[in-house]
Structures are given as C-alpha cells and as structure tokens.
C-alpha cells in the first residue's frame, strides 16, 4: 500500500532505529501485550465468558466484573479477552494466507517477469475490483457461516497487496548493479533470491503484514456484526452486534469492543509507520550537525542599515551584502555569504562560477523564488530603489513578469505539463497586461514567431511534452519577455541544450535585449556565453563574489586566482566549442 515501503534497504540496524522511536516501541508493547493476554485467557482468573445470570444483567463496573456485564449477565472483560483470541487468530490466518500466496508469486513475477508477471498482474487487477465483504457473504451463503473459512478466503483477496509491494521491491533490486554482478558471476538464481532479494523484502513484508492485519480485523468484525460467524463463541464483532441492539438503553455496550478494535488497530498502524520511518531514515543522509553558528537573525527581515556602498546612479538592480541560507532555522547552512553588485539599465551582467558557487541561489533570491527551506537571511535587494527583500508575496507577484522575469535552465521541466503552450503564454498577457483573449492570442503567436518558431500555431496548441528541448526553451524565453520586463534573469539558459541550439538561443536573447533595452542577469558557468553577450562580468566562488569588471578587462587580464583557473580550465572546452560553432556556421 505504501510506496515508501518499496525502498530496497537491508534490514540490519533497523531494529535499533525502531527502538529509538517512542511510538513504535509503545505500539509494539501494546500488540505483544494483547497477544499475550489473549493467549493466556484460559489460565487467567477470569469469569467464564459464556456463563451469566440474568439477574446480573447490565451491571456497571464492579470488583467482580471490572467492565460490568452484558444483556445476559456475562462478564464483558472476559468476553473481550476471549474475543481477542478469535479476532487475532482470524486476522493472523488472513495475513498468513496472503503472505504464502502473495510473496512467492511477487518474487517470481518481479525477478523473472514474462508470463507469470502478466498473468499475476491481471489477477491482481481482478481481485482489486471485488468488494471483499460481498464475496465473503457469497461464500457463507454456500458453506454456511464460518469465520475461519471466510478469513482464509479473505487472505486470498489480500494477497495482491503483498504481491504488489514484493514485486516492486524485487524489480527495484533486480535493476541494481550488484545483482547484475551476481548474475554475471554465475551464481544460481536460488542463491541470488535468498541473499539479495529476500533481505530486501523482509521489512516491507512486516509493514504490509501490520496494515493487512488492520484490514482483516475490520472485515472480520464486520462479518461478525452481520451475524456471519459462530455466534456461540465470543467475538468483538458479535459484541458490537449485541451492544447495538441495546443502543437505546445501554450505549456503553458498544464502547468496549470498539475500543478493543481501535486500540489494537491503532497500535498496528503506528507500528507499521514506525517501521516505515526506520526504513526511510536509512536512505537519508545523516542530519547535518549544526556547526556553523546561526548568524544574527536581527537583520533577517530588515535591509542592511547602511549599504556598503551607495548604488551608482543609473543602477536598475542593486544587491548589497546578500546572505542566503537553508535549514529549519535560517542560516543553518549558508550558501551565499554577503555579495554586492549592480546592474544598470540596459546592461547585460554575466554571473559566472562553477556549480555550487551560489550563483543560481543569488538569481532566485532576486526573483523571490528560493526553493523550500531557503531564505534571504540578511542584506538588501533594490529594484529601481525599491526594497524587494521585505516585500509580501502579493506585491512580489505583481512585480514578476512585468519588472523581473525569469528564463530557467531545464526547458523540459519548466513548462506545466497539463496546460498547452498557448494557455501558459496567454494567461499572463491577459492578467498582467489586461489584453483581451484575441489580443493575447495574437501577441503570443507573434512572440513565438520572434523566438524563431517556424509554426507558431502548431506550437501554440501543443503540450510541453510534445516539444523538443530547444523548442521548449524558446517558448520559455517568449513567456519571460511577454510582459516587457525591465530585468531578465536567465539561469544557465543554454546549458541543457544541444550545442547547435545554444548559439541560436543566445542570438535570440541578444536580439531581444537590444530591441527592448532590458537589463539581463546572465547566470552561466561558460565564459564563451559571457564573451558572446555580456557587458560586464561578476565571478562567484563558494558563495562569494571574487572579481567583477568589464568583460574585456576580466577576460584579458583576470586578477583573482580563481578567475584565472576557471578561464584556464575552460580554454580547451571553449576552443572545441568555438570550433564546433565555426564548422556549424560554415555548414549552414
């Protein structure tokens, strides 16, 4: 049932992790205790569950009857405990049947695939379409009311639940390299199955067992409530039935069996969850220890009192002492350590650095779109003198599209797969610029043509997954410039594209920039792109700005050692790229 139960992780060490989970331990104790009490019922000093004097009927709790007596004077506690035997055994029977059928078939289907997989998959779908209780009613119509037979058949109906998770686990482990290696090494299948596959499915089997037991308990109690079952034996469902008949004068009678079902089921669910969490923990990296002291949060929301340097006149964007951090408490991990730069109106600034240098984080913080958990911990971002870091979401949204726009890196993952390209272009035009539907459509088609799309009508009606990467990136550029932004933030806009398409996309960006006079922040790791399009360049390394200046100056005589090494490292790559470009241009 749980997708997370499919994580292929060996079980070693999980027990220890489970013991660290208070709820997990408590629920395990409750389950064991209930099983123990039920098992010991014959030797416990309990009144007989079946004997009762009518004169003692419907009594409240007393020292003789801790929970009181039922409608015929029988001891409720004793009936609950004896009922636990029936209900726990019934649930166990169903789970064992499901296990015996589902696990081997799941392993075979997942390991060998082929016809076993298709046939069992089909049977799985078939059983999933059946409401279990109706089938059990049909069975009891034929063979008479027998809880044991009903639960065995219900086990068959639960088998697909085991089948699915075991098959998925095995499929996952089958694709692992170490299993391939074992196959290549010529180990027999049986050995691989035991050594690698079984160890992977052990924990999911236990988790699923607890969940299925909950379902089995519910259905058995339901059947007993309906009167399908041995009425001479005490059971929780039977007690609910008897209690509900007297709901008008003794509503408490249904409370006790409900509590019994509820407590056991909650314990099983919590146990399954704790086990799942213990499994998941293993796949996650160890929690970061808080080594960096959190920076003073006093300045978190307020812009720096005195910017390090005044923004030069004519500056459109002015970033001062920007700090960006991640973590539950801001600043647990700082990725940008106080950078400052300006972009003048109509200027193209390249922000260069290797991956992880913090350049994308800087770009996203200007947009106010840092990923979950990230935030600006201190510093100031001003657009045309207006402070952005303190802006509420609504006002920020009003700025986006018309003042600041964004071209992302990965074209294929940045378009909404459920809406057409046309709708994604038209909606901002209508909402931000107030165009009519017809005007917006005409404008969107015009934009698509301007970014070099040959058949705008067709692309307009397409869904993103029907486009190539180059096409999608053109669409994203068209969307970014559609509302005439003053500042375009392009985050590695050519990195994910084919080399041949890269040059075209850069050319489109350059043309659009020249025509509209917008400023551009070009985030890139490629000095070729910088040389192509930028006026000035800022170099970032490990969250800090190490060099900034005119493109020609920086490229010809870099000052900072990091810039020099970056340029040297790129020399070979850029040469081959230039060669490619040259041959490409010659070829066209």
């Amino acid at each position: 049932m749980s997708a997370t139960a499919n994580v292929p992780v060996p079980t070693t060490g999980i027990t220890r992790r489970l013991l660290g989970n208070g709820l997990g331990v408590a629920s395990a104790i409750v389950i064991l205790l209930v099983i123990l009490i039920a098992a010991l019922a014959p030797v416990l000093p309990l009144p007989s569950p079946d004997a009762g004097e009518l004169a003692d009927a419907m009594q409240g709790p007393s020292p003789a009857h801790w929970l009181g007596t039922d409608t015929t004077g029988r001891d409720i506690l004793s009936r609950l405990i004896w009922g636990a035997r029936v209900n726990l055994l019934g649930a166990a029977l169903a789970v064992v049947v499901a296990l015996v059928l589902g696990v081997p078939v799941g392993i075979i289907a997942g390991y060998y695939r082929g016809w076993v997989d298709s046939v069992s998959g089909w049977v799985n779908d078939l059983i999933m379409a059946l409401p279990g209780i109706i089938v059990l009613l049909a069975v009891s119509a034929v063979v008479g009311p027998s809880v044991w037979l009903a639960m065995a058949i219900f086990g068959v109906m639960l088998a697909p639940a085991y089948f699915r998770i075991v098959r998925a686990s095995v499929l996952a482990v089958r694709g692992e390299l170490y299993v391939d290696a074992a196959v290549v090494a010529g180990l027999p299948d049986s050995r691989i199955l035991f050594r690698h596959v079984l160890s992977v499915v052990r924990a999911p089997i236990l988790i699923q067992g607890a969940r299925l037991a909950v379902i089995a308990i519910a259905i058995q109690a339901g059947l007993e409530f309906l009167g399908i079952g041995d009425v001479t034996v005490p059971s929780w469902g039977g007690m609910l039935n008897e209690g509900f008949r007297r709901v008008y004068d003794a509503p408490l009678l249904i409370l006790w069996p409900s509590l019994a079902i509820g407590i056991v089921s909650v314990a099983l669910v919590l146990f399954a969850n704790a086990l799942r969490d213990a499994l998941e923990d293993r796949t996650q990296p160890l929690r970061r220890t808080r080594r960096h002291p959190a920076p003073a949060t006093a300045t978190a929301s307020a812009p720096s009192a005195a910017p390090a340097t005044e923004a030069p006149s004519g500056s459109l964007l002015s970033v001062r002492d920007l700090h960006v951090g991640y973590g539950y408490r801001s600043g647990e991990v700082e990725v940008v350590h106080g950078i400052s730069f300006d972009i003048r109106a109509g200027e193209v600034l390249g922000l260069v650095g290797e991956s992880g240098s913090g350049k994308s984080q800087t770009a996203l913080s200007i947009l106010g779109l840092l990923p979950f958990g990230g935030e600006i911990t201190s510093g100031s971002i001003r657009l045309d003198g207006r402070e952005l870091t303190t802006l509420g979401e609504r006002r920020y949204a009003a700025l986006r599209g018309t003042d600041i726009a964004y071209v992302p890196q990965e074209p294929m993952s940045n378009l909404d797969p459920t809406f057409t390209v046309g709708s994604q272009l038209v909606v901002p035009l209508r909402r931000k610029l107030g165009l009519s539907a017809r005007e917006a459509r005409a404008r969107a088609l015009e934009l698509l043509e301007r970014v070099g799309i040959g058949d705008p009508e067709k692309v307009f009606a397409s869904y993103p997954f029907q486009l190539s990467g180059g096409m999608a990136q053109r669409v994203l550029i068209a969307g970014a410039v559609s509302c005439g932004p003053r500042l375009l933030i392009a985050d590695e806009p050519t990195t994910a594209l084919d080399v041949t398409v890269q040059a075209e996309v850069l050319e489109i960006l350059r043309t659009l920039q020249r025509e509209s006079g917008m400023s551009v922040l070009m985030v890139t790791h490629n000095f070729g792109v910088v040389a192509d399009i930028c006026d000035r360049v800022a170099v970032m390394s490990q969250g800090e700005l190490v060099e900034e200046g005119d493109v020609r100056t920086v490229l010809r005589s870099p000052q900072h050692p990091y810039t020099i090494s970056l340029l040297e490292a790129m020399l070979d790559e850029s040469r081959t790229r230039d060669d490619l470009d040259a041959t490409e241009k010659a070829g066209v």
Partner: protein
Amino acid sequence: MGALLLKRAISGLTLVIAISFLAQLLILPGIDNIARNVLGELASEEQVAQKATELGLDRPFFVRYADWIWGAVQGDFGTSFYSTQSVTAAIASRLPVTLSLVILVTVLTALIAFALGITAAVNRGWIDRLLQVLVTVADALPAFVIALFLATVFAVQLHWFPATGYVPLTESPLGWLASLVLPVAAMTISGVVGVAQHVRSSAITVLRSDYLRTRRSRGLPTRYILATTVLRNSATPGLAALAVQVVGLLGASVVIEMVFALPGLGSLAVQAALRSDIPVILGVLMTYVVIVVVVNLLVDLLIAWVNPKVRLRA
C-alpha cells in the same frame, strides 16, 4: 479520447465476465450444501435431492454457468429461492439507496480530500499534523464502527437525525438527505483522509517542481496557480487513490446499510447470504462489480481529461 474510452470499456467488460465465471466457480465446492441449507436440518435426503433438481443445482457446471450468463446478459439473474420475485426486480428496487450512498460519498470524498490535501501541502503546520493524526485513526477504525458511534451519538442520544430508515428522493428531498447524513458522514470520514494523504504528497511534489517556480515567475497570483497548476498536476494520483477507495467504500456500505437499516443492495446481500439465496447474492455481487467498473471508467476519463499526457498517449 474515444480510443481510450473503448480500451477501458473492453477491459472492464472482460473483468465483469471473468468475475462472473469466478463467482460461479466459488460456489461450486458447496453446491451440494445449497439445497440442504435452503430446506434446513430436518429435511430428508429425498426432499433435498428433489429441491436440488428443482433449483437446477444438479446440472453440470458449464450448463449452469451458460444458462446463468445467457440470462444475465439479457438482464435476467433468475428468481430468488424464496419468492417469486425476480432477482433483477429486487436489485432494481434497492439500487437507488446504494447508489445514493456511493455517489454522495464519492463526490464528498473527492471535494474534501482535494481541499484538505492541497491545504496541508501548501500551509503545512498544524493542519498537516492534524491530517497525519487523522490518517492513523481513520486507517485503524473500521467505517462501520464510526457509523455505530455516529448513530449512537447523533441519532439515539441527540435525535438530530433518524437512526434508521430511508426516504426516497422523489418522496421528500429533505427526508432523503436526512436519512443519508449519518451513513454518508461515516463513510466519508473513514475514506477521505487516505485520499487526502495522496493528494497532499503529490501536491508537495508539484509545489517543489521547476514548472511551478516558472509559473510563479510570470507574476500570476498564488490563488490562480493553486487552482490550475497545483490542482491539475496533483489530480492524477489523487483520483487513482479515489478509485481504489470506492471499492473499499462499497464493502463498507454493506455493513453500514445494516447499521442504519437502509434497504439497499448490502442489506439484500446479507439477507440472501444468511439463507443461502444463491441467485440473489450472485446478482448483487455482479451489480457491485459493475458499479466498480463504471466508477473506474469514470475516474479514468476524469484523469484523461485533466492529464493530457494520458489523453494523448492512449
């Protein structure tokens, strides 16, 4: 879209036929008991044998199945062992009750689950923690136990709603609604958080996606983005979970109809099961399977409608 519809309809039909065969197979091991069950312990061997012949139980399996399926495709499920009423008529008279339950619960579950799941994903905080607690509770308590509590508190103690009975919609819309409030509430409470949990986790994935960030970078209001991008992209897993939930919900409806004494298919099935009325129980079983198939078909169509990938690649 048409191709998808046809494909799903054919697979649904295959499923119905396969289950009809399986159901007949299921009663085969006990076929000799049936006449005895109908007549009771005191009947003589001859009487039992005569009854078996009368009910057609002594015919070979395939003859019986062929006869039954031939009738079934014409809408004739035979006659009850105990009355002259045709099974089809009995089912038809009780179908509105069960359908009222199922439709109301499915629609309510879908609405609440999506609202709850997306709210929990967006706001996290207390509403998310509450959802996690409720998921555990709803996982653990059978729907009919919830129903017993609702009946005890709101019908028996507080007299807010009728404890038992059913008023047809055509007779009194308000009475119809009042008679269904508690059963519908019990089933919705039991099923809604599970679906909401699926919606929540897929909505969280959407909220962290690149395309959501890009949509936000276009300056669209949050409300609009939630109602379009987030809703549509998290709909597929949520609807799939809903389809699974409906099967469980039909099972729960059987017991819940008994709790509230609703004259639906479920109580018909229980009555038939307790007295071995095979034609009735087979008819009810097939009706449930058809309901499941139709609901799955509708959900598939809904998924295809919101998810162009499914629609265009079918």
